[in-house]
């Protein structure tokens, strides 16, 4: 069946997953559903501690079994040591058919590939997968279907019971022996535990894993004792150097600075740029540069930001330090400056559900004026791809891309027209992750295209001196330089699905095929 972004979703995939094809970004607005609730093992006795000496023993206590679903968060980023420690313990027991439901997986988890190959792990659900796991899935090594979910979509899947987590393993920089978990302090400070908060509400068993046990009560807890069954102390939950890196130096890349300047000029010429506006951006060089140039104009015009949200960096936290924003709402800290800032009273932690979940009573993304995003590819329908590389290999993550694009009044995607020889603006993206109907503007180094759906924005930019082009013109410029790319050759087998934030199927990802030259004509 062809879905609302024009992608063919084979019937057998719809049958196998019980899912519907994507029907539009706001199709389920106003729907009423019954929340799924997990099992709760009651603790009435006062005998004390929830400490369990080893991961292995906690697996016994939590009834680890073949076919179970285990969950993890990715606040330790490339420094994570929790996922591999737990999975190695599961692997040693010879358990099979495990589903990993992670908020994201990356390079820190390359060691899982042999467990995929031997059938220990047969399903992966994640925002995305970078590194060798992505390669392995694209090569067809995972027995089941990989499901790529946005950060908001993941919470929805937990709330509806579409995925039922048996055991949530929550790495926590500090914990007390009764399960109060905090993201601050200890050796592996990550600032927030936002992506793990929904797991603590929806998993049957919740295990805190820490390398820094502190006296009871570890308050104020980010995930509290009423939601945690057991606590395990291990030597290391992460590599601090890779968890929060030093703040990235502002880019000096002229191309990125140019795009940042275009982006800022666009932003300040929209009607949304006024006192109290809200804003989210990412960690890319151009995103940070546009935050910096926006900061300057805010100062000049005496405009304050109402709130900033998202994964945060030094550039965003400096707004708070310089009193240019009322508050920050934080779901992830990308550098040590952000980890430090979260101690500020006006820097609030929010859960992944508050941030982006489409199936609660209204997420923060719905209150966004601007979001500045990146993309691997954008096509002439403004559909974006942030998961599958132009070579067809799974290499990125949805993150909050579709959530924020759907929520923000003005969703801006910054992408250099060419990455090496690969055009970022193309006729058809390899895989759709974010539907074009939610993407308003594309900023490239060769010009800016406004989505024709946004005639209001086109109108208000009429007298603005920026290099406006149609999206087709941008594609044509790209193709005139590098040539029109051929489509990647795939096998028939579907190895993963791109789930829309509402749980429908946005697109499918197929197994890659070794390149073969076309026969001579």
């Amino acid at each position, binding site marked *: 069946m062809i879905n609302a972004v024009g992608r063919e979703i084979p019937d057998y995939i719809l049958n196998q997953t019980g899912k519907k094809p994507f029907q539009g970004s706001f199709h389920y607005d106003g729907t009423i559903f019954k929340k799924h609730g997990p099992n709760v093992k009651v603790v009435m006795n006062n005998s004390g501690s929830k400490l369990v000496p080893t991961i292995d023993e906690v697996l016994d206590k939590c009834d680890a079994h073949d076919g179970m679903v285990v969950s993890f968060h990715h606040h330790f980023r490339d420094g994570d040591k929790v996922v591999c420690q737990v999975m190695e313990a599961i692997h040693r027991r010879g358990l099979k058919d495990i589903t990993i439901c992670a908020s994201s997986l990356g390079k820190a988890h390359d060691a899982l590939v042999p467990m995929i190959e031997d059938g220990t792990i047969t399903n992966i659900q994640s925002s995305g997968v970078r590194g060798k796991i992505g390669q392995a899935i694209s090569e067809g090594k995972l027995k089941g279907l990989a499901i790529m979910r946005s950060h908001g979509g993941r919470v929805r899947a937990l709330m509806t019971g579409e995925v039922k987590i048996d055991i949530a393993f929550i790495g926590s920089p500090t914990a007390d022996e009764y399960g109060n978990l905090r993201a601050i302090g200890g050796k592996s400070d990550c600032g927030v535990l936002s992506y793990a908060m929904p797991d603590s509400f929806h998993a049957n068993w919740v295990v805190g894993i820490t390398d820094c046990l502190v006296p009871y009560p570890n308050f104020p807890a980010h995930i509290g004792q009423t939601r945690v069954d057991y606590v395990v102390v291990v030597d290391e939950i992460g590599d601090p150097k890779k968890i929060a890196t030093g703040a990235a130096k502002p880019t000096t890349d002229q191309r990125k600075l140019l795009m940042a300047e275009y982006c800022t000029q666009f932003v300040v010429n929209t009607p949304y740029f006024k006192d109290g506006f809200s804003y989210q951006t990412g960690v890319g060089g151009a995103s940070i540069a546009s935050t910096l140039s926006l900061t300057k104009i805010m100062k000049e015009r005496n405009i304050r930001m109402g709130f900033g949200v998202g994964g945060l960096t030094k550039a965003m936290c400096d707004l708070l330090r310089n009193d240019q924003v009322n508050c920050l709402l934080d779901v992830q800290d990308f550098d040590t400056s952000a980890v430090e800032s979260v101690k500020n009273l006006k820097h609030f932690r929010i859960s992944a559900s508050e941030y982006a979940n489409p199936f609660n009573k209204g997420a923060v993304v719905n209150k966004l004026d601007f979001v500045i995003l990146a993309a691997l590819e954008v096509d002439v329908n403004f559909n974006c791809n942030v998961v599958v590389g*132009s070579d067809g290999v799974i290499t990125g993550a949805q993150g909050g891309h579709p959530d924020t694009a759907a929520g923000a009044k003005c969703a801006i995607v910054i992408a250099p027209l060419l990455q090496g020889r690969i055009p970022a603006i193309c006729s058809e993206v390899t895989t759709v992750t974010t539907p074009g109907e939610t993407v308003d503007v594309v900023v490239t180094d060769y010009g800016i295209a406004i989505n024709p759906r946004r005639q209001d924005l086109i109108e208000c930019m009429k007298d603005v001196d920026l290099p406006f082009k149609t999206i087709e013109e941008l594609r044509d410029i790209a193709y005139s330089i590098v040539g029109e790319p051929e489509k990647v050759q795939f096998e028939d087998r579907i190895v993963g699905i791109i789930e829309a934030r509402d749980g429908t199927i946005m697109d499918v990802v197929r197994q890659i095929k070794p390149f073969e030259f076309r026969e001579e004509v």
Partner: protein
Amino acid sequence: MEIIKPAAAGTLESSDCQVTVEKGDGGIDFSLESAVINQYGNQIRKVVFETLENLGIDNVKIRIVDKGALDCTIKARIEGAVYRSVDQYDNLPWGGAIR
């Protein structure tokens, strides 16, 4: 033209390619490793064969490691490698075999 000795041109920098040529076994033996082979493999092969034809070469082992070079770069690197293989550095046929 006949390839006389093995020669190379180009680098492994992004947007460049490294071309090596040596005498063939009676035909064109072409191999390609490219960061963009999925999208541009056929196009690169076309450029390689056209460039070799312009140079009048039909007996060569040509290996290209491509880092996303544009067609014009690939063509220039092939021509560079070929003229190095015959030690010709002056009086290059601009507008003739090189065009």
